[in-house]
């Protein structure tokens, strides 16, 4: 496993490299001082990118290449500090804001779980990569990815555009925007937010079963949705007056005859389902 720690964690990046089982470009040779390239150890196998951050805004783009390229102001900041190390001395582990990048079993993990720092993290990966992102105080945007996309944010918006994988997206206080060119057949998807709008654009020929749960809002669509409501989530309880069966506040429907399940859940927002 190659392991890079940037920002107040390690003395020198170069010293960390384990024998080049996974060829990793030496950061010092990078053209861009704020950029780092990490190779997937087995390029022919399914790739995965995992990003966890407290403060950063995360942008992920699929590109026509085979490595993960990570770019962040935190990287250049760390390198600037490294250049200023007085001769014969080494920096102590002070200050946070670091980004940690690891690769193991074809999974590249980028984590920045400190409360300090912030700014942007931009990552490029091959188009056919599965992506999992967890952010807290900033948004996530994913573009041009055909693997499975699982994105979560607390206070930021979540956006997936120009993609074609299965998407599971959620936010607490942000908007969820998803635009898919085509969808992986047979994959279930789910979009949820507590206090935001869910805005999803789907291919016109998509076959799907819709499950829509909206508390204080409505669902709008230009698809020809057949509302079925033939399958209710019901609950039964035994009360002193007998059995009580209640339906859940959920609307079911199908597009183009039905297919894999797509769930939309929002409490204080509305749901828009566009036809592409």
């Amino acid at each position, binding site marked *: 496993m190659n392991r890079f720690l940037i920002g107040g964690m390690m003395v020198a990046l170069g010293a960390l490299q384990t024998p080049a089982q996974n060829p990793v470009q030496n950061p010092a040779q990078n053209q861009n001082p704020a950029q780092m390239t990490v190779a997937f150890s087995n390029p022919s196998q399914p790739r995965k990118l995992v990003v966890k951050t407290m403060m950063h805004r995360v942008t992920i783009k699929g590109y026509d290449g085979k490595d993960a390229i990570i770019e962040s102001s935190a990287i250049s900041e760390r390198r600037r500090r490294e250049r200023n190390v007085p001769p014969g001395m080494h920096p102590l582990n002070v200050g946070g804001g670091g980004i940690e990048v690891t690769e193991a079993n074809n999974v590249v993990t980028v984590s920045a779980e400190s409360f300090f720092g912030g700014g942007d993290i931009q990552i490029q990966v091959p188009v056919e990569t599965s992506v999992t992102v967890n952010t807290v105080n900033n948004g996530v945007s994913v573009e041009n990815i055909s693997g499975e996309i699982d994105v979560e944010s607390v206070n930021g918006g979540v956006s997936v555009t120009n993609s074609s994988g299965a998407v599971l997206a959620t936010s607490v206080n942000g908007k969820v925007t998803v635009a898919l060119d085509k969808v992986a057949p047979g994959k*279930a998807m789910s979009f949820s937010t507590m206090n935001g709008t869910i805005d999803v654009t789907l291919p016109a020929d998509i076959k799907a079963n819709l499950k829509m749960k909206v508390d204080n809002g409505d669902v709008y669509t230009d698809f020809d949705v057949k509302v079925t409501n033939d399958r209710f989530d019901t609950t039964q309880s035994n009360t002193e007056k007998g059995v009580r069966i209640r339906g859940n506040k959920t609307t079911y429907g199908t597009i183009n005859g039905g297919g894999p399940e797509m769930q939309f859940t929002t409490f204080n927002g509305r749901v828009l389902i566009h036809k592409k």
Partner: protein
Amino acid sequence: MTCEQARIQMLGGGEGKDFAEHLASCESCRNEVSRIGTLWQSLDLLPLEEPSGKVRDRFYEMLGAYRQGLAAAETRPVRHWWTAPAWQVAAAAGLLAAGLGIGYGMRGNGQPPAEVSQLREEVANMRQLVALSLMQQQSASDRLRGVSWAYRAEPSDREVLGALVTAVNHDSNVNVRLAAVDALRRFSASPETGRAALQSLSKQTTPIVQVALIDLLVDLKNPEAAPELRRLSGNETANEGVRQRAQWALERLQ
């Protein structure tokens, strides 16, 4: 009476107070009874099968060809009594009547549930297997599919219920946890469901899942939920929407 016992009763005709009480409380068994009823009714309505005209034509064609082959050797073809069309029709009708009679007899003596219930059990096992194995996949989208398969499991299936509870408590993906909370409704007749939802509420930190659990507890009318709801509604660090929902739920449960 359990669903299993009720199903055996159903195939034998289904009588008695216990059976009626179980039907009143179990939607899936009610559906089952009406399905079986419809099946028997439509079997009764099937017309008696008559051999079609084409069968006769083909038979005579074949016979004609056979006769041509024999023509050289035999000057007078032998006509047996059983080749007469009237006898053929009678024999076909007799066999059909015997078949229906055997079928009716098997249904009448209350024994045949063996194959039918075995088949049903196999289908239930298959659905359980699909749900359980999908819920353990790496891909969150696959786990989501596993959760929707849980809707097809038997409402008494404790293994699927257990897997759903594990998903609600431990799945790394918010959307999977959310879907699993909804799927718990399928198992609402089991007292474990209410307990599990309540325990899970005290562990969850994702607001949208907390709200879904609160809604479930209200729908289950779980009175034991009150202390936890009171704690949540007074918790300054909890999400504002969750606190309001907990307050609303407390009023509904009182």
